[in-house]
C-alpha cells in the first residue's frame, strides 16, 4: 500500500489599487477590493466550490491550506466556501497552517513570522474546532533556519519543494526528518506538474492524461508516499472544467484502490510511516519559478527596493494596512523573470507589466510614508 498525499494551496492576495503619483495625498483607497471581490467570486465558482463538493462527497482525506487573508476575503465575499470547508473537515482531511498574510516575514523578521503563524493557527482552530499540526510556509519557502523558528510552535510536519538538488540525493517519495525533529515532506514536482501544468497541454506527448495511465505512474514510482502538492486553483481555474479535470480527479479518488494506492493527509501519513534520514538545507528553497529559490520575489533591484522600503516603514504604518502590503504577491508581480517564467508571472499580473506593478506599489508606499512616517 502506497499513500497519495495530496496538498492543495488556496491563496489570493488583497490586490493593490492602481495608484498614480498624482493620487498621492488624495486619500484614494490603497486596495483594489472590487477586483479582489470579482476574482474571489469567480474562482470560488470555478474552483473552490466544485472541488470542495467533490472532496466532501467522497470524504477523501487530503491536506488543504487556505491563507489567512484568503479566508478573510472569502468570509466577506463568498462565505459558502468556508462553510463547505467546515463540512468537509468534519468528516475527513486536515488544514495546514501557514503565514497568515502569505508574507516573506520568515526570511526577515522571526518575531513577525511567529506572530503570523500563531494568528493563522488560532483563527483556523477557532473556526474549524480542531488542532492542526502541518505547516507550510509562503510558497514553500524553507531552510534549516525556518525549521528552527517553527520549533517554537506545536508543529509536527513541514512541507517544502523537492528541488532537483534535493531529489538527486533524497527520493521525494519518502518522509524525512528536519534537524529539529519535524517530519519533512518533499513535493514530487514531476508528478504534481503533470496535473497542474501539463494536464491540458496538447503539445505534451502524454496528452490526453487519463486516470488509469496516471495512477499506474504513481503505482510504479518507488517509495511510501506520492506528494502531490499544487495550487488549489489547478482544479477548475487553471485547468478549466471543460478540460475534464474534475472527472480526472474523481477517477483518481475512486480508482486509486485498484492500484493499491490510498489517499491520506500529511499528518496521517506521518503517523503511519517511519521517517528516513535527516535532511539539512542551508539555502532558501521554494516552489516558485525554475530556480526554486527566492528570485521570484527578490530577484531584481526593483523588488529588492520595494522590500527594503517595506522593511524600513515597519512600525509607522498602521497594522491594518501594513500587514496586507507584506503579501508576497505584490513583489511577485514585479518579477522580470525569464521565459518561460515570465509568462506565468504575466498570467497572474493584474497591472499589465512588472514596471507598472512596481510604480503602483512604490507610489502607495510613498503616500504612506508621507502620511504616517513623517520622513519627507
Amino acid at each position, binding site marked *: 500500500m502506497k499513500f497519495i498525499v495530496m496538498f492543495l494551496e488556496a491563496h489570493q492576495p488583497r490586490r493593490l489599487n492602481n495608484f*498614480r*503619483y*498624482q493620487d498621492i495625498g488624495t486619500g484614494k483607497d490603497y486596495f483594489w477590493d472590487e477586483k479582489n471581490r470579482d476574482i474571489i467570486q469567480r474562482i470560488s465558482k470555478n474552483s473552490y466550490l466544485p472541488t470542495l463538493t467533490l472532496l466532501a462527497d467522497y470524504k477523501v482525506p487530503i491536506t488543504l491550506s487556505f491563507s489567512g487573508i484568503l479566508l478573510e476575503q472569502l468570509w466577506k465575499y463568498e462565505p459558502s466556501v468556508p462553510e463547505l470547508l467546515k463540512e468537509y473537515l468534519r468528516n475527513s482531511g486536515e488544514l495546514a497552517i501557514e503565514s497568515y498574510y502569505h508574507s516573506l516575514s520568515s526570511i526577515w523578521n522571526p518575531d513577525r513570522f511567529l506572530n503570523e503563524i500563531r494568528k493563522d493557527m488560532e483563527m483556523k482552530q477557532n473556526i474549524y474546532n480542531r488542532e492542526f499540526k502541518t505547516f507550510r510556509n509562503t510558497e514553500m519557502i524553507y531552510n534549516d533556519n525556518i525549521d528552527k523558528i517553527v520549533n517554537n510552535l506545536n508543529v509536527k510536519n513541514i512541507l517544502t519543494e523537492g528541488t532537483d538538488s534535493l531529489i538527486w540525493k533524497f527520493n521525494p517519495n519518502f518522509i524525512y526528518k528536519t534537524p529539529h525533529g519535524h517530519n519533512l515532506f518533499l513535493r514530487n514536482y514531476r508528478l504534481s506538474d503533470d496535473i497542474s501544468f501539463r494536464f491540458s497541454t496538447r503539445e505534451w506527448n502524454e496528452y490526453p492524461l487519463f486516470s488509469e495511465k496516471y495512477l499506474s505512474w504513481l503505482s510504479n514510482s518507488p517509495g511510501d508516499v506520492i506528494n502531490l502538492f499544487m495550487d488549489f486553483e489547478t482544479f477548475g481555474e487553471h485547468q478549466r472544467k471543460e478540460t475534464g479535470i474534475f472527472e480526472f480527479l474523481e477517477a483518481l479518488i475512486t480508482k486509486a484502490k485498484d492500484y493499491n494506492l490510498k489517499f491520506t493527509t500529511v499528518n496521517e501519513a506521518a503517523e503511519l510511516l517511519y521517517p528516513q534520514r535527516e535532511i539539512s538545507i542551508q539555502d532558501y528553497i521554494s516552489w516558485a519559478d525554475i530556480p526554486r529559490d527566492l528570485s521570484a520575489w527578490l530577484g*531584481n*533591484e*526593483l523588488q529588492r*527596493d520595494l522590500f527594503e522600503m517595506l522593511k524600513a516603514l515597519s512600525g509607522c504604518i498602521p497594522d491594518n494596512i501594513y500587514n496586507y502590503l507584506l503579501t508576497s504577491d505584490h513583489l511577485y508581480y514585479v518579477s*522580470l523573470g525569464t521565459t518561460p517564467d*515570465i509568462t506565468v508571472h504575466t498570467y497572474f499580473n493584474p497591472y499589465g*507589466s512588472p*514596471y*507598472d506593478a*512596481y*510604480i503602483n506599489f*512604490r*507610489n502607495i508606499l*510613498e503616500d504612506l510614508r508621507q502620511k504616517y512616517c513623517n520622513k519627507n
Partner: protein
Amino acid sequence: MKSIGVLGWELPPFFAGGLGIHTLNLFSIIGRIENITLYIPRFTNEAIRYAFRVKMVNYNPVGSPYEKNKEFYQKVMDYNEILINEVSKDHDIIHMHDWITVPAGIKLKEKYGKKLVFTVHSTEYDRSGGFYPQERVLKIEREGMLAADRIIAVSHYTKRIITEKFSIDPNKVTVVHNGVKSSIFSSFTKNYELKNKILYFGRVTPQKGAKFFIEAAYKVRRYIPSAKFIVAGEGDQLNEIKSLSYSLGLENTVNFYGFVSEAESVKLYLDSDVFILPAVSEPFGMTVIESLSTGTPAIISKTTGVGEALNHVLKADFWDTDKIANYIIAVLKYRKLREALGIFGKFEASKFSWENTALKTLEVYNSL
C-alpha cells in the same frame, strides 16, 4: 545570385530620412549576397561610392515625401514615369519602397512580368495621424499591395493596418523589424544621476504626437517644477506646438532645440532621464531603439510598432497624458526604476540589427 532592382527615393547623404537610412543599411548588407541595383533620383552629379550599385535616374525632385502638397504628388508621378524607362529588364525581382515608388513598380511588373516585393515603411493612415488621409495616395498604396507578390511590413502593427484597413491577405505579408546601427548609440556608459530632463526627438508633426508631450509636460510640472522638457526636431506642426506650450505657460519648462544631427542626438539621449514618443501612429519607431541603445529609458504610445517587440519600455495610449505624466514622474523620482528600464532596455535593444533585417528580407526574396 539574384538580380534585384530596388526602387528608392532617398539615400544618405541626401535627404537622410528614415527611408534613406533603411535603404543604405539594409542594402549595404544584402548587396554582398545578391546583385543589387538601387534606383534613386539624381541629387548630384558627383560620384559617391556605396556597397551596392546605385543608378541615379535623370530626375531631381526637391521635397520630402512627407509633405502633403499637390506639387509633391506630381513630382512623384514624374519620377515614376521616368523610372519605368530606366529600370533594366534583367532583374529577377523589383523591390518597391512606400507609395512613392509604387506606380513604376506596378508598370514594370506588367511590362516584364517580374516578381514584385513591396516594403511598407508607413502608410498614409500613419502619416496623416488619422486626419484626412489623401484618397489618391491610399489608392496607390492599395494598388501596390494588390500587385505585390510579397509585402514586407516593418511591424505587426503595420501588418494589421495592411490587412485590416487595406483588406490584404495576411499570408502575403511578412513582418521584418528594422535594425539599428547600435555602435553609434551604445558605446557610451549612461549614468543614472537625475538630470531632470525629458526628451522628445523627432519630426514635430501630428503623427508623432508632439502635442501630447506638451500636455504631459504641463501635468508633470505641478509635481516637479524644475523638470525641463526638450523638443528636438522640426516639422509642420512646430509653430502650433510652440504656441501651445506658451499658452500653457511653459516657456521656462519646454525648450525647443530645432534640428539635431545624429551625433548630437547621442549626447541628447545620454543627457536625458527619459525619452518620450507619444506617436498617434508610428509603424516602427527607430528613435526608441536608439534611445534604449544609449541606456535611456523610453515611454512610448501603444500605437508605436516597435513596442510589440519590447518588454522594457513603458507604454500608454498616446492621448492618456495623465498616465504618461505618472510614468515621467516615476522615472524621475525613482532611481531604481530609471536604472532597471535603462539597463534592461539597452540589452533588449541590442537584439535589433540590420543583419537580422537583411536575413529576413533575403528569406522573402527566396520565397519567390
